[in-house]
């Protein structure tokens, strides 16, 4: 049994310490907002926050999350930055299929926490790890600027 602090709650899970955090979140804890896309930290669909830092949960073993605060898409709206990001996403109608958007929002929120007024170059580098197969990138960029109150190029 391992103990996890996720979205402000302590949960006990029965999984091998090497199990990727993604599958613990999805299968053991039944929280399916965090998505499986590639299993190799190449697409960002599984992005969650560990102590506020964006990580790819598909490539983060359960053992690495012990003692840290995990935040997922289900609770990101409870943070002021997360809420602002979600509102901007809604205002600009970012999602298409929507599958990658949990990860996009987690990455964008982490960016704005670190850099409240990001430049286009900041957005490029912070969001480059998150693939959107529907190609919502122009709206993601605009939504990040909107949430930050900045103007894009």
């Amino acid at each position, binding site marked *: 049994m391992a103990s996890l602090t996720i979205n402000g709650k302590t949960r006990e899970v029965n*999984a*091998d310490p090497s*199990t*990727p955090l993604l*599958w613990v979140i*999805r*299968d*053991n804890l*039944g*929280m*399916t*907002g*965090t*998505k*499986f*896309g*590639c*299993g*190799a930290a*190449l*697409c960002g*669909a599984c992005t969650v926050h560990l102590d506020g830092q964006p990580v790819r949960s598909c490539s983060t073993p359960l053992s690495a999350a012990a003692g840290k605060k995990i935040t*997922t*898409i*289900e609770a990101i*709206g409870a943070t002021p930055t997360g809420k602002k990001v*979600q509102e901007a*996403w*809604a205002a600009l*109608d*970012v*999602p*298409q*299929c*929507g*599958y*990658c*958007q*949990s990860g996009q*929002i987690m990455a964008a929120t982490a960016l704005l926490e670190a850099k409240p007024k990001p430049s286009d170059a900041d*957005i*490029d*580098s912070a*969001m*480059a*790890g*998150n*693939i*959107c*197969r*529907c*190609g*919502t*990138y*122009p*709206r*993601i*960029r605009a939504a990040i600027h909107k949430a930050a109150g900045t103007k894009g*190029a």
Partner: protein
Amino acid sequence: MSQLKNPARRTFLKSSAAAGGSLVIGVALPDMFRGLQAAGKESAMNAWIRINSDNTVTILCARSEMGQGVVMALPTLVAEELEVDMRRIKVDFAPPGEAYINAMLGGQLTGGSTSVRDGWDKLRMAGAQARVMLVQAAADQWKVDPAQCKAANGSVTGPGGKKASYGQLAEAASKLTPPKDVKLKDPSQFRYIGKPMKRLDSANKINGKTVFGIDVKLPGMLYASLAQCPVIGGKVVSFDAAKAKTMPGVKHVVQISDGVAVVADSWWRAKTARDAIKIQWDEGPNKTLQQADVWKSLAGAMSKPGATVKAQGNVAEGMKGAAKTVKATYEMPFLSHSPLEPMNFTADVRKDSALLIGSIQFQQLAMGMASAITGLKPEQITIKTTFLGGGFGRRIDCDYMAQAVEISKAIGKPVKLVWTREDDMTHDFYRPASLTELSAGLDASGKPTTLSFKMSSPSVTMRLFPQIVKDGVDPLQTEAILVPYDIPNQAVSTVIHETGLRVGYLRSVSHALNVFANESFMDELAAAAGKDPYEYRMALLAKQPRFANVLKIAAEKSGWGKPLPKGRARGIALMEGYETYMAMVVETSVQGGKIKVHRVVVATDLGRMVNPNIVDQQIESNIIFGLQVALYGDITLKDGRVQQTNFHDYQLPRMPETPKIESHIVQSTEKPGGIGEPGMALFSPALANALYSLTGKRLRKMPFSLA
């Protein structure tokens, strides 16, 4: 050839062919929503509309939502005539059923950018009929003439201040005979259609609540991971699961048609144990297939006589009399769909029933295959479609569904099968590779008098819908194959040639092949004639006003002909697809040997549209999709194995590569065209043409490489 290896599909297609060549199979509508309703009583007005006594209006969406916005567009058509507030409706995905057949495709299938075109009249009529029935029910109750009553915002009002909600009227209204000859609104009266509206499915997509196939959970459900032969079509000879069976959480190891599945109490445990199984495969006839063989065989097929798509004038004479001739061959690779949600499916097969839930695009094929595998009758099978984490045509095929059904049947328990990304990329139905040879004769002024087009490529349609291939011409291989330009002598032909790798429909289907070849070649002709590519095309479009209009808009809005910063160039291209006319100008540069796209200006005439906001989303989406095809997409074979396995070697565009996109939509009263696919086909030729203008190098092979 690996086609139709699956007995379920073969049986399904045979039985449907016997039923007159259409893909229709009769399916009773299972009451999939029982237990999910509010406390009130629900009445079905028709196949599309259910109204609860608590005033909840549920509109059924019979197409799969994979990002393209049908979950908005189709209910909008119903709501417009039903006179209900779009923001207050509930939308459910329809079960398989006769009423939901896509008349343009002959099956309950989402594809071909047909959803709005198929639904445009049908769904407005469904809304209008229900409205008339509700009004009639109110009039009956009030004993007044229905002409004295009016429906608006989910209520009917009558003389003397009478008012009744749809919820109060629904039960009586649902018992009336649906009226015929209902007059639809004049477009000037549209409240929703043609006006931008935010997507109602966004809210749950930004908080993680949307349920995709991969998120389905059933009581007592187990998780499965399936080892499939590395060479598609290969079979299990023997396997050793001794170690896997001892691993934690493992409940079952079962062999099914496509491989060996491990079933465990979590997916990760299933996947880990799967990796511990030793399997001896019979890799089948494709095990020696190399990528070079594919190109060699496609080139060889070019010497076969093609099936004629168009023969006009006299090509031989035209070439003989030409002042100048131009010839070019274009090469397009296999592509993977790679939707971000890997293939997965949840099945609960019991002795006398089955519950199947997941991300699918072709509900009838799913039903046919499930029935064949389980031996159950369609009325014993419930199929629920979830939101799809992308489809792009991949989920027209139901191989992954069949696998989940087989596994659940074998173990007698509900199971969710989830593929890895590697499974997904190496077991796709790939966009066909193709070779296209074009030649043209120009007169002394540079004007083309003669055009000859011949392509060789595998046919998806031969695998899925062979009954619609006539005289060797596959209508889904010849989309946009004919140029809109006024050229007197033309010979257009195709050779269907299978290469060994299984193929499937991918977004834009053959538009992406044919528009690339044709529009690149037009640019080559303009260059040979020493003419501006825009002017050259325009001069040949006198009889094509819709083409000419979008071309002109794209050129004007992009600043065509005006100077650009040093190191940048523009390219232009034009197409029609899915009854939508588009022109695009791409602005590019080369930085450190790498192609950079700065700006894309696109003009679109898609006739009437339901929601301009979603139209713009789709245009943006197609451009990014096109960027992938132009710069990265290349599935190759070695020893019969697909070599690309994940996003490190099958790259998708990312944020830093995203160009500025400017979309200009023509306000049009023409009938609606499709918008989910066409723009993708236009991007590659526009970029190739821009790169030619910039570098003088003509890129005839995709993905583009300047090396």
